[in-house]
C-alpha cells in the first residue's frame, strides 16, 4: 500500500514534468512578444482568441499571413511589465520583441539588436525622423517608436467663462485664475490638476521645468537636474498645491483621477494627452472643453511635452539561425506598421502615430488629428536614451513627493544630480 502511494507520487511528478515539454518543429520560428496594455481593448486586439481587430486578432492574422512564424504574444499591464521583463532577462530568457516606454537600461548589457539588423529599409524611412534621433546611441539605432502622445492644457470652457477669466498663459495668471475659481465655486471645484504620482512625477517635472527654461539636461546633453530654473519650477508647482489650487493629494491621485474629476466638472484645468475627449465621452461627461498651450513662467515660452514609447528587439545568441530570426522580427514589424493594421491600432488606443504612412488615413478619419500632429512636431521629449533615465525619472518624482511633505527642493535635486553624475 505504501509503495503504491509513493509510486503514485512518482508517476504524478513525472507526468507533471513531461506534459508541457512539447517541442516545436525545427523549421518554425517562435517569437516571444510583450506588448504593454495601453487601453481597455489592447488585449482583445492583440491576443490569440481576441475579437478586437476586425473580429479577429493580431496574432492569428499575423500567423495566417506569415506561415512558419509563431507568435507567443502577451499583453502585460504597465504595473507588471518591468517585473516580468527583468525577471526574464535575469534568467537569460528575454522576449524577442518588447514594447516599453524606455530602452536605455538595456544598452549597457548589450542586450538589444540594432534596428538595422531587422528593420526593412522602407519601414525605417517611414518613421518620423525627429523621433528616431533619440534612439541613436553610439552611431546605432536601438529602438523604433510605436506611438506617441502630446500633452496639452485642457480646460473647461464653460467654467472659465462663468467665473469670468481667460485661460492662463503665465504662472502668475494661473494663480489668479485659480483663486478666482476657488472663490466662485466656494472651493467645490479644483482649479488645477497636478499628478506627482510614482508613475507620472517625471511629467510634472517636465511641465514646470520646461516652462521655466530648465529641464532634465543642458545644451550639451549632460544631466542638469539641480539648475536654478528647475528648483524654482518645482517650488512653484508645490506652491500651487500648498495654496490649495490643485487636487488635494497629488502624490496619490493619478491621471485617471484627474481625468475623472475633469469629466465630472470637478476640475477646471488639467494637462493631459489627446485621448481626453474620448475618455470624458466614455465616462458620460458632457464637458465643453478646449486645449491651450501650457502656461510658462514670465519671459519663457511654453513647450509641449511629448511622450513616445518604443518597440525593440533583443539579441538571442542561442537562436540557431540568426538571419532567419532577424527576418522574422522584420516581418513582425512590417505587419505591425502596415497602415491597414497600424492605423486601426493607433486610432483604437487614441494615441498619435509614429510613421508617415499612417498620417493621411488618420487625419481623414479624424480631422482634429492634424492639430495634434502640429503640436507633436514642436514637442520636447524626455531624454530616454540616456542610461540613467530610469533613475532620474524616479528621482525627480521622489524629490517632488518629498517637497510635498515640506522637504527642501534644492537639497533634493542636488543630491539627485550628484548621484546620477557620480
Amino acid at each position: 500500500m505504501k509503495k503504491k502511494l509513493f509510486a503514485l507520487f512518482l508517476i504524478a511528478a513525472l507526468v507533471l514534468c513531461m506534459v508541457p515539454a512539447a517541442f516545436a518543429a525545427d523549421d518554425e520560428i517562435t517569437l516571444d512578444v510583450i506588448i504593454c496594455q495601453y487601453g481597455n481593448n489592447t488585449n482583445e486586439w492583440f491576443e490569440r482568441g481576441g475579437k478586437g481587430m476586425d473580429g479577429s486578432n493580431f496574432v492569428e492574422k499575423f500567423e495566417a499571413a506569415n506561415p512558419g512564424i509563431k507568435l507567443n504574444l502577451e499583453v502585460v499591464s504597465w504595473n507588471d511589465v518591468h517585473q516580468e521583463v527583468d525577471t526574464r532577462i535575469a534568467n537569460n530568457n528575454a522576449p524577442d520583441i518588447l514594447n516599453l516606454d524606455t530602452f536605455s537600461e538595456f544598452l549597457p548589457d548589450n542586450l538589444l539588436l540594432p534596428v538595422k539588423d531587422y528593420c526593412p529599409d522602407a519601414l525605417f524611412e517611414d518613421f518620423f525622423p525627429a523621433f528616431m534621433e533619440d534612439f541613436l546611441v553610439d552611431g546605432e539605432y536601438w529602438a523604433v517608436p510605436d506611438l506617441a502622445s502630446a500633452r496639452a492644457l485642457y480646460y473647461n470652457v464653460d467654467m472659465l467663462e462663468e467665473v469670468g477669466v481667460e485661460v492662463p498663459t503665465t504662472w502668475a495668471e494661473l494663480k489668479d485664475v485659480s483663486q478666482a475659481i476657488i472663490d466662485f465655486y466656494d472651493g467645490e471645484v479644483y482649479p488645477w490638476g497636478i499628478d506627482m504620482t510614482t508613475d507620472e512625477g517625471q511629467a510634472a517635472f517636465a511641465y514646470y521645468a520646461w516652462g521655466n527654461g530648465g529641464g532634465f539636461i543642458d545644451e550639451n546633453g549632460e544631466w542638469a537636474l539641480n539648475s536654478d530654473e528647475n528648483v524654482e519650477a518645482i517650488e512653484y508647482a508645490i506652491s500651487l498645491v500648498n495654496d490649495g489650487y490643485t487636487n488635494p493629494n497629488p502624490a496619490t491621485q493619478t491621471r485617471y483621477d484627474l481625468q475623472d474629476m475633469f469629466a465630472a466638472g470637478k476640475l477646471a484645468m488639467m494637462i493631459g494627452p489627446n485621448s481626453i475627449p474620448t475618455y470624458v465621452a466614455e465616462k458620460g461627461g458632457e464637458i465643453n472643453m478646449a486645449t491651450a498651450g501650457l502656461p510658462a513662467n514670465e519671459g519663457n515660452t511654453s513647450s509641449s511635452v511629448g511622450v513616445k514609447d518604443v518597440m525593440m528587439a533583443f539579441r538571442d545568441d542561442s537562436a540557431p539561425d540568426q538571419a532567419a530570426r532577424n527576418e522574422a522580427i522584420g516581418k513582425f514589424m512590417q505587419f505591425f506598421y502596415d497602415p491597414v493594421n497600424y492605423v486601426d491600432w493607433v486610432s483604437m488606443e487614441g494615441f498619435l502615430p509614429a510613421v508617415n504612412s499612417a498620417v493621411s488615413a488618420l487625419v481623414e478619419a479624424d480631422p482634429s488629428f492634424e492639430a495634434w500632429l502640429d503640436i507633436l512636431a514642436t514637442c520636447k521629449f524626455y531624454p530616454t536614451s540616456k542610461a540613467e533615465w530610469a533613475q532620474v525619472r524616479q528621482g525627480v518624482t521622489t524629490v517632488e513627493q518629498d517637497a510635498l511633505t515640506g522637504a527642501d527642493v534644492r537639497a533634493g535635486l542636488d543630491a539627485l544630480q550628484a548621484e546620477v553624475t557620480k
Partner: protein
Amino acid sequence: MSSGLNRNKWEPYIWLLPSLLLIAIFVIFPILIVFKLSFSEISKAGVVKGFIGFDNYIEAVNLPAFKTVMLNTLWWVLSVVILSTLLGFIIALVLNQKFHGRKIARSILVFPWATSLVIQASVWNYIIKAEYGNLNNVLLNLGIIQQAINWRSSYQIEFVWECWVGIFVTVPFVTFCVLSGLQSIDESLYESATVDGAGFWQKLWHITIPMVRPSLTVSTVLNIIYVFNSFPIVYTMTKGAPAHKTDTMITYLYMLSFYERKKGPATALSVIGFLILCLCAGIYMISVMRKEENL
C-alpha cells in the same frame, strides 16, 4: 503524544519525503538563488554579473530611505498584528456566545479572508477617494458629515488606512483560530469558577486566555510572517508615495528593484528582511514552545 508507530528509524523520513522534495525544489531553491544574487553584481536590466561580496548590503543599509522604511515596517507589522489579534480575540469571544443568527454572523466575518488582497486594496482605495469615494457618499447621505472629506490628506493618514486594510483582512484568521481554541474549553471550568465567585475578568484572565494561547501562537507566528511579507495593500494604495514615506520593506525593495533599478541592494534588502523575520519568529516560537513542550 508521539507514540512511536514507526518500526524502523528510516520510515519517518520516507513519509516526509514528498513534502520535503516539494518545499526543497520549489521554495528552498529560489531562496538559495536570492542569497546568491545578494552577493552578486546585477545590472540595471537584471543581468547577473560576478560576485561582489557585501557591497549590495552596504549600499542597501546606506540608502536614504532605509531608516524610514524600517520604521514603517515595524509600525506596519506591530499595528496590524497586535490590533487584529486584539480585535479578532474580542470578536471571537462574542461569536462564541449563543445567539440567533450566529451562523450568519460567522459566515459574514469570513468574507474578507476569501477575497484576494489586490481586490480588497482596490475596493478600499475606491471607497476612500475624496471625490467619488463611497465612504463620503454614505456619510453625506446619513447626514453625519456636511461636506466631502479628504480621507487621505496626509501620508500619515494614508499609512493608517493601509494598516486598517491590513487589519481588516487579518482579523477573520485570528477570529477563527481563537474560536477554535474557545470551543475546546470545558464549560465546567467556568461553572466551578463562578461557584468560587470569580468575575468576568478573572475568568477571562485565568481560564480563557491560557486556554486559547496555543491557538494565538499559531495565528501570531503566521501573521507576523504574512503581514511582514504583505505586498499588494501598500502597492495598490500608495506605491509608497510620497517618497517612500508609506513604503514597507517589501514594497520598498520592489520599487528599488523595478523603478530605481538598484537590483543588487534590493536583493540584499530582501535577505536582511528574511533574517529579521527568522530572528523574530524564531525567538517568539522558541519562547512559546518551551512553555508547551508537547511538540
